[in-house]
């Protein structure tokens, strides 16, 4: 599914990631962890082609790093960025429309829109409301819905539960589990170990822009202390 090899990336002269390797499989939730500034968001942006990077990122054999950035979502990558980054002055319907624009088949837009809105009925009631006026939880729903409109094979979520109330966190968690069960590869950036333990099939830890350690679901419980030490908690 997703295979990252020898990925180095940064901003201008400053290198943030060095020789990072990672894999994410379909039907699994892969979690990327690390301290603040470790390079998690840069890794997500590198997959999307939004930062200059060397190395290879392939999705089902397609080299995403060789594509112009705007073609990456068309190959089945949905992105929920940190801080949601909605088009705040556009309505909910227009944000959804932008997401649908990157879906592979224009003829299926109607069905895809209905399918996504069925996951987030609250958004369906607010289609004409400006995205910037939604509550934090609703904004996160919209950011997730917009990414799902791409009809992704790979869903990238960068700290989707940050700053949300528990009920909303649970709803986002349920959506991630539903997407996993549907066969999507989910790559999640998350800081909270408690949230990861019951959810992750694999965990990759990066420190100072390099691979530090990885865990599978079976050895995660035994390695919890090491994971905590990596994160400094």
């Amino acid at each position, binding site marked *: 599914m997703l295979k990252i090899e020898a990925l180095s990336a940064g901003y201008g002269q400053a290198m943030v990631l060095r020789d990072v390797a990672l894999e994410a499989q379909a039907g699994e939730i892969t979690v990327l962890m690390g301290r603040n500034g470790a390079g998690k968001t840069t890794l997500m942006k590198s997959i999307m082609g939004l930062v200059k990077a060397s190395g290879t990122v392939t999705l089902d054999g397609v080299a995403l790093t060789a594509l112009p950035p*705007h073609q990456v979502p068309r190959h089945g990558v949905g*992105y929920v960025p940190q801080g949601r980054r909605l088009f705040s002055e556009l309505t909910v319907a*227009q944000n959804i429309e*932008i997401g649908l624009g*990157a879906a592979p088949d224009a003829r299926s837009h109607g069905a895809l829109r209905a399918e996504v809105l069925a996951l987030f009925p609250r958004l369906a009631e607010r289609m004409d409301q400006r995205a910037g006026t939604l509550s934090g939880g609703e904004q996160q729903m919209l950011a997730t819905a917009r990414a799902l409109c791409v009809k992704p094979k790979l869903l990238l979520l960068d700290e989707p539960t940050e700053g949300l109330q528990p009920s909303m966190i649970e709803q986002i968690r349920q959506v991630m589990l539903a997407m996993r069960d549907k066969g999507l590869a989910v790559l999640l950036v998350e800081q909270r170990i408690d949230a990861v333990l019951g959810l992750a099939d694999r965990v990759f830890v990066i420190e100072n822009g390099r691979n530090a350690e990885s865990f599978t679901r079976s050895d995660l419980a035994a390695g919890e202390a090491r994971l905590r030490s990596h994160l400094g908690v």
Partner: protein
Amino acid sequence: MEFGPYLLLACLEGAVLAAVLALMASGLSLVFGVMRVVNVAHGEFYMLGAVAAWAVTSMLGAGAVANFVAALVIAPLAVGLLAAAADMTILKRLEYDPERTIVATIGLLYVIQQLTLMTYGADARPVVAPFNSRIALPWVEWGENGLSLYYPWGLSTTSYKLFVIVAAVVLITGLRLFMAHSRAGLIMRATQLDGEMATAFGVPVERVYAIVFGAGAALAALAGVLIVPIQQAHYLMGGDALLLSFIVVIIGGLGSLTGTVVAAILIGMSDGIISVFFSPTLAKIIATLVVALVLVFRPQGLFGAKDR
């Protein structure tokens, strides 16, 4: 002429300037709004529109209406394509960096201006208006028999000037509807709000930038075509137009189409009225003073967002 009819005449002159200014400044505002590029060469695209209109009407040699319609279509299209090419060969290479693109568009200004001087020459050349009948305007007076209409001597305009006002209203309304309701307008607004996120959702942002830069220049060229039957085409005519356009977009709020139109009406009308009653120089002094006051007390402009 009495004060009332004289004021009406001044307002009509101001409305023509406001119409042309609104069109031209909308292009400047569109480019800044979507691309965050301050296009210093914008006035030269206006000049190129006027010069291209002269070239098309001279070469075609058909009737005045056919010549002018051809100029209205060909000149903005040619100038828009030229601007899109400039975007792809110059601004894209600078990665749309705000500071470097200012320097680049200053360079573009001089290149266009000097190439025009070398090929078109230094003479101002006229374009015949497609229609230009004089329309006498009525005024009211209170006489012995109550209110009555009369036609004061000298109170008139031309059908072409009214056409310029109507054409600008139609074009700007069309632009607003396009931005608000079309899929392309939605993509432009999304790119304006967050270019990186637009890319992450499949929008080819660099292509959008080329189209927007071309469309902005085409709007300036349209304004140039519309004005050239009133003012002659001249290779230096872009300078004043650029200054007024900057005044308009600063007062209206950079990137705000509504603000641009409101400020164009404000500046155009005040310029027309002050020029008729006092002097054109005083009109420019007051416009510049208004800009200074706006920059001090409301730097984001009348309709601009504070964080822009």
